[in-house]
């Protein structure tokens, strides 16, 4: 248990971001091994590893990889979702800046397994350094024959492109990302069961595999060390295998990215980050701003793992772990979160477009001391009217933190409504 540096093992080493350094430290072994294997064997290896999507939903990666047609009739596309917009999450940024070849190699392995011809890395527009680092890595890989035509002489072709976003949070949603990539408005598109899965009809109506940066970065290790080895990490959990990078922020002494094995207690992650600063632990948002908030008591019980986290009422999400100390005003915290979702709603569907704004306006009123007793019920109703009714997950993501905070920290909201000011003294 505890810290397990796999992806981030060499992240402190500047040489790791160069091709020579990367290969010296064991890079591209995974790809070489993959190319010596059958395509299906690669997918089976990923299946054995139990790797699950690291973008937030935790969908088993191999099902997606296996979902692309084996008989190719159209070009296959590969997309790396590097539009890391979730407040509190910054793991992909570090991965791309310090370990760009991990991503390139991982995508090449996935391209081999899915017969993809072209890959796109959709990088968040603000990540200029990450885009530069990826650009350098891709150029180097092209020069070394690790991208382009006939990779490593194995007869495999794979083109890799970088596309930078324009600052929309919604474009991190996979179908909106594809719309944006195709030059359309960054709005989500119909999903299963309303439309075929992206693995059948995604980018330009062709089979498309889309995964998070961290998911791809795991692939080289799974191939080089074997799926069974990877599955042995974090085996104490129900269904979560391997490691997960957590971006720890908030009132901690040493904020930053920490890679831990699944099965690690949440409090251990806090220890890694140097413990609380300025007061005792009051609450924690374990997986990025979209997931429900946990109070200190639940934090004590929380174990890092997709199912384990659900049990205490929250989610692993994308791993943006925010610890809040006892002087934090939860109402203000939720107010700020809801302002983010109000700004970032794409406007496509009614519940999200109107609901996020309404939620913000109510919270704004409560925060300004103008709250009415019926507002809390109203907020809950609005959350319920958004949750599950919106077109994509953004609506749910906007409603969960508010609904969660209302459940766990209702007394703080009530205090605000009754007295027009915060329960906690500003520290």
């Amino acid at each position: 248990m505890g810290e397990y540096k796999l992806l981030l093992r060499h992240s402190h080493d500047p040489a790791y971001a160069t091709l020579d350094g990367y290969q010296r430290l064991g890079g591209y072994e995974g790809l070489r091994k993959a190319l010596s294997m059958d395509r299906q064997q690669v997918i089976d290896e990923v299946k054995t590893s139990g790797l699950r999507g690291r973008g937030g939903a935790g969908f088993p990666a191999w099902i997606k990889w296996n979902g692309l047609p084996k008989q190719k009739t159209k070009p296959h596309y590969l997309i790396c979702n590097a539009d890391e917009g979730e407040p509190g999450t910054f793991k992909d940024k570090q991965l791309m800046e310090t370990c760009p070849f991990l991503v390139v190699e991982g995508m090449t392995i996935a391209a081999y397994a899915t017969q993809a011809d072209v890959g796109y890395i959709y990088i968040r527009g603000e990540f200029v350094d990450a885009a530069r680092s990826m650009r350098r890595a891709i150029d180097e890989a092209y020069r070394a024959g690790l991208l382009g035509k006939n990779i490593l002489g194995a007869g495999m072709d794979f083109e890799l492109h970088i596309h930078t976003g324009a600052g929309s949070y919604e474009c991190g949603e996979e179908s909106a990302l594809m719309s944006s990539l195709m030059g359309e408005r960054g709005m989500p598109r119909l999903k299963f069961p309303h439309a075929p899965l992206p693995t059948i009809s995604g980018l330009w109506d062709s089979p498309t595999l889309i995964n998070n940066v961290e998911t791809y970065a795991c692939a080289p290790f799974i191939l080089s060390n074997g799926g069974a080895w990877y599955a042995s990490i974090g085996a104490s959990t129900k269904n979560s295998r391997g490691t997960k990078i957590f971006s720890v922020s908030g009132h901690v002494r040493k904020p930053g990215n920490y890679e831990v094995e699944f099965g690690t207690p949440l409090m251990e992650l806090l220890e890694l980050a140097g413990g609380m600063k300025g007061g005792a632990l009051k609450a924690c948002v374990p997986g990025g701003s979209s997931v429900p908030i946990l109070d200190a008591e639940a934090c004590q019980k929380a174990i890092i793992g997709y199912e384990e986290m659900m049990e205490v009422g929250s989610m692993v999400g994308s791993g943006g772990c925010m610890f809040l100390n006892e002087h934090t005003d939860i109402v203000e915290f939720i107010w700020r979160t809801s302002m983010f979702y109000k700004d970032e709603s794409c406007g496509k569907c009614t519940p999200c477009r109107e609901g996020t704004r309404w939620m913000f306006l109510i919270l704004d009123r409560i925060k300004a001391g103008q709250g009415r007793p019926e507002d809390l019920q109203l907020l809950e109703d609005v959350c319920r009217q958004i949750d599950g009714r919106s077109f994509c997950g953004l609506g749910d993501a906007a409603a969960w933190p508010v609904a969660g905070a209302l459940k766990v920290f209702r007394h703080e909201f009530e205090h605000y409504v009754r007295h027009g000011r915060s329960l906690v003294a500003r520290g």
Partner: protein
Amino acid sequence: MARKTDAPPVNITINGIDLQVPKGELIVESVKRLGLEIPIFCYHPRMKPVGMCRMCLVEVGMKQPDGSVRKMPKPQAACTLPASEGLVIFTDTEQIHKDRKGVLEFLLINHPLDCPICDRGGECPLQNNTLFYGPSTSRFVEMKRHAVKAYPLSKHVTLDLERCIQCGRCVRFTEEISGDAQLAFRHRGAEMQPVTFELEEFTSKFSGNTIEICPVGALTSSHYRFRARPWDLETAPGICTMCSNGCNVWFDRRKGKLVRINGRTNEAVNEEWTCDKGKFGTDWMNNPRRASDVKVRRGDGFSRADWAEAYAEILERFREGGHEVAGLAGPMLSNEDLYLLRRMFDETFGSSNLDHRMTSVQGPAVEPPSFTIEGLEDEKGAFVFGASLSDESPIVYLRLRKAWYRQGARICVATSRPDDADAFAAVSVRYPQGGEAEFLRSLVAELRVQLEGGRSFGELADLASTLLETRGPILATESLWNLDQAGEVLAQLRLAAELLGVSLNVMALGANGQGAEELGVRPDAFDRTGLGTRQILEACADGRIRALWLAGVDPFEAFPDRSLVQRALENVEYLVVQTALETEAAAYASVVLPITAPGESDGSFTNVERRVQAFEKAVDPPAEAKPAWRVFSELMVRAEPRTPHFSAREILAEIAREVPAFQGVEWSAARDGGVLLGARRPLSRARS
């Protein structure tokens, strides 16, 4: 509307009722089979579903092998959900009622309460859905969103962004149907607005349709603005007469006056769309310059007369006039008008100098069009020659675009000027003005080379090879008779059609131009010989024709050679002008007879695909105006004793008996959807 599909049927259950529907049919459509309704805003059957408004949420379950139903945790949008085997739908549960209330509450928090002054009020889907499914009160106490109000997006369309519910229907219309993509969303989230780029003018030729499909009063008609409320209106079906396509429309009148035109559904013709010309181009019907009285020239001025006086004077000049009298017919005369006009000239005046064509020259008759508007959808391609379809034949244009958008039809366009159809044409070529014949000669040569298996790399190689692959109908308009080498152009087009084995369709441009052809309103029809339009005008100018009848036409506007018209009208001894408006030609008249405008009397029109469509009086005519056929009938009776005609139906029945092409046409069928004339190729080989 979804067309018939060959999809296999699947079993689904809606509210406990089992039914079979084609696989892939959207649930929002399947529900209609049971006579149920799901409230919608963004869904439109003619456009791709997007699921934006979330109004159509239903609970969905799957039938398990053991017969139990497993419900999905979240409600699903019925407008995007395709039917599949074992789907179980609930549209009437407690939860769904709550969800609908929730969505409507969201939509209404920012919707202004200006229903009393909104032109949509009373026929507004948001009002209706709120009444049926919505909450009775709002819990929203904050400030509503404020945005641009009453912004004139174009001279036809007024935009009110506060009322917009961001359903995207208008945006999708311009992208999917009209294809000009002039509207798009800007900003995001609660600030999202459908507007033209930088709020510049909305110049789409089909912008009026966005007004009709807007589920709120965000897009309203600038012409209809504040002129009536829905409960003030009386509505009657009609046919648009602004071009030869014969769109089915609704005439909305208030106190007998036309205030608005809306599209009426006819799947075979215009689906439900109209062009802006048809929708907004009817202001002239309420023009103060409408001719309303019978006037007879006395010296330099006119004096009012009664019909009997005018008839006596006209008969004196025209009766047994033979070669010395002539007539020109206009494009908005109905089949009944034209039929009696020809009979009057034949039987009463004994003259064959009668023509309806207003092109520069008049050539021999061309074979009638054999395409159908609906059939275009199934063609693999089409060849548009020398016509700007979006202007001249907007509904044919929309169908061609639909054929491309839905089925990937490859449209070829050859014109002398850039055209709207270039946007979706597989091949578009330009030829210099005046070089039409030469262009067609090279095309025919190219077709021959390729047919013989030769390959060439000429400029026209692409065009020829696409034509040979698609073999779609050739579409040209009668405006080709305005070209210098009209005869040669037509000959080459025929040759090309023959080589390709496709039909050549020379489309009429006037509302009833095709009807006039069918009914023989031309000097060479039915083995007669007479003068064509140009010859008539020339004969008028040099005095060979002494009396001229202008039936619903102003040659100053319609005929290309203005000076010839002026000489003709100045020199002709006696001029009868039958007109709905006080036109320029009316100033030269000896007698002015007011006629009704289309929609002010019963009648039938023959559209560009030879579809006879009847309509009934919808609007009151001004004072003394009479339908043209009534005037002809009354004159014929005055000239010699015979049975008069009393109604348009009766005349159409007579046409059906007398004119071979119209055999079997009945009024009721012509009124309800229309009757196609002539035998057609079976619909279509391309559908397989």
